[in-house]
């Protein structure tokens, strides 16, 4: 069962991946096939597992103290563009153009 072009296009929009060529799509197909093997196991009435540690995996609760922050300079060193002490980003989400308007190998499918 092949993954449809609509789903591939949807994935490219959602995750901003680029399947690039038929090899990329084939790799995806194989990954789905591999993962689908999980469906062969009957898990009726079995609670999903959160961790192999089961109830030994304890959530640590931190006290409500201020212990971090105050490192504006360091954080802004990672910014490609900054203005005063703000990170600068494009004006809004620039959506990926629709399938018909993109130069993508998916067009031919």
């Amino acid at each position, binding site marked *: 069962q092949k993954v449809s072009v609509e789903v591939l296009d949807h994935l490219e929009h959602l995750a901003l991946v680029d399947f690039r060529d038929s090899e990329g799509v084939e790799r995806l197909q194989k990954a789905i096939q591999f993962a689908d093997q999980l469906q062969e196991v009957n898990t009726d009435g079995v609670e999903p597992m959160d961790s192999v540690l089961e109830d030994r995996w304890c959530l640590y609760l931190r*006290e409500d103290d201020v212990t*971090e922050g105050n490192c504006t300079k360091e*954080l802004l060193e990672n910014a490609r563009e900054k203005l005063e002490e703000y990170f600068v980003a494009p004006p809004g989400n620039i959506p990926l153009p629709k399938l018909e308007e993109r130069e993508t190998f998916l067009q031919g499918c």
Partner: protein
Amino acid sequence: LAPWIPVVGLEIHAQISSNSKLFSGSQVQFAAPPNSLVSFFDASLPGTLPVLNRRCVEAAVMTGLALNCSINKKSLFDRKHYFYADLPAGYQITQQRVPIAVNGSLSYSLCIDNRMSQMVTKTVRIKQIQLEQDSGKSLHDDTRCQTLVDLNRAGVGLMEVVMEPDMCCGEEAAAAVRELQLILQTLGSSQAVMAEGQLRVDANVSVHHPGEPYGVRTEVKNINSIRFLAKAVDYEIQRQIEELENGGTILNETRAFDSKLGCTVPMRDKEGKQDYRFMPEPNLPPLILYDTKSLPANMNHQQVINIDWIQERLPDLPSVKREKLVEQYGILPEHSFTLLNEDGLAEFFESVVKQTQMKPKKVIGWILNDLLSYLKQHSLTVKESPVSSILLADLLNLLEKKEISSTAAKRVLAELWKGEGKTPLEIVKEQKLELLQDQKELEQICQAVIDGQENEVIMMVLG
């Protein structure tokens, strides 16, 4: 024309009142230099991990209990993915599968026909309360075609309270949110000040004909006050009715409320239906809560949250406080409603009652009619009142002892508002407002008045 039934549901985000953030140790504070309250985790730098803040869990449990919810002893964290500049990780940690509290209710009161004397109680079901992260703040700089991002708010703890679509108009939505606000402030779990973004409300609105299925709903955002909430909801209901009666259709879209124009407009930057690709948060195990029965014997108590312990320490909720005021002081329910609606007014009232012999039923009139209307006229809070409870009590004592008349008392009060530091007694003496007790003196004055108004006296005697 067939009648329309409007249906209103609410999603409310309340910022948790805590020193540090939900999953990191950076400070929670309004208005600080940009990006100064940001830890490496908040900035989503690789290699950082979330560590849950105990205080945030307690706040959510308190709120769940106050809203009559079932507290889930095991709740889970999930990732909700979407791209936005103020969400550096590309996902928000939330509780989508199993939230911390479910199936509660909130009772609120409404005045019928705008008259305080006729109040009706309504209930809205609480679907759930979940813990989640707040995002950073985007400042849109349209002139330079860019967005400035401040991550101070990124990672602050939120309680999302989901109210079922049990409301039917702006007034009900506003009243429900107001009551929730009072509850949160009483609990201290959130300061819930809308103007500072500590309480954000999104409304889900649809209309349908009786007997038919629910209509398509729209989501209304960008509502900045309780007053605007009522306006936004009512506008959207009207817009949908008009659209449908003109043969149009309602799109399942997100709209923003424009407070200047008093209308809702489609929101930009919303590309079709979002697919959030929810997945379990792999870095956090389930959150386990205990009660007295299930309390583990040998665990470090700092690592244990006991629901019963929290329940026992809940303060009196607004509804209980109102009942107590009515019972203790013999005032009307609508009086207690107003007392609790103004920050500090109930305490002021009780303080005056303690310091005066005047009956509470009479004192309440001075509080609600004279004090409150003055404060409103001058946009003052109770705390800013130039007339303290002591001064008002002194004045009411003079009135109660019949040393002055009611009219004189109002004049003294008008003088007290000036806040010149004079006591009521001083003002009474200054303006010679004392009631005359001397019978002879009174007779002399009456006779003088009669003598001076001969014509009027004759008219009166003749009938």
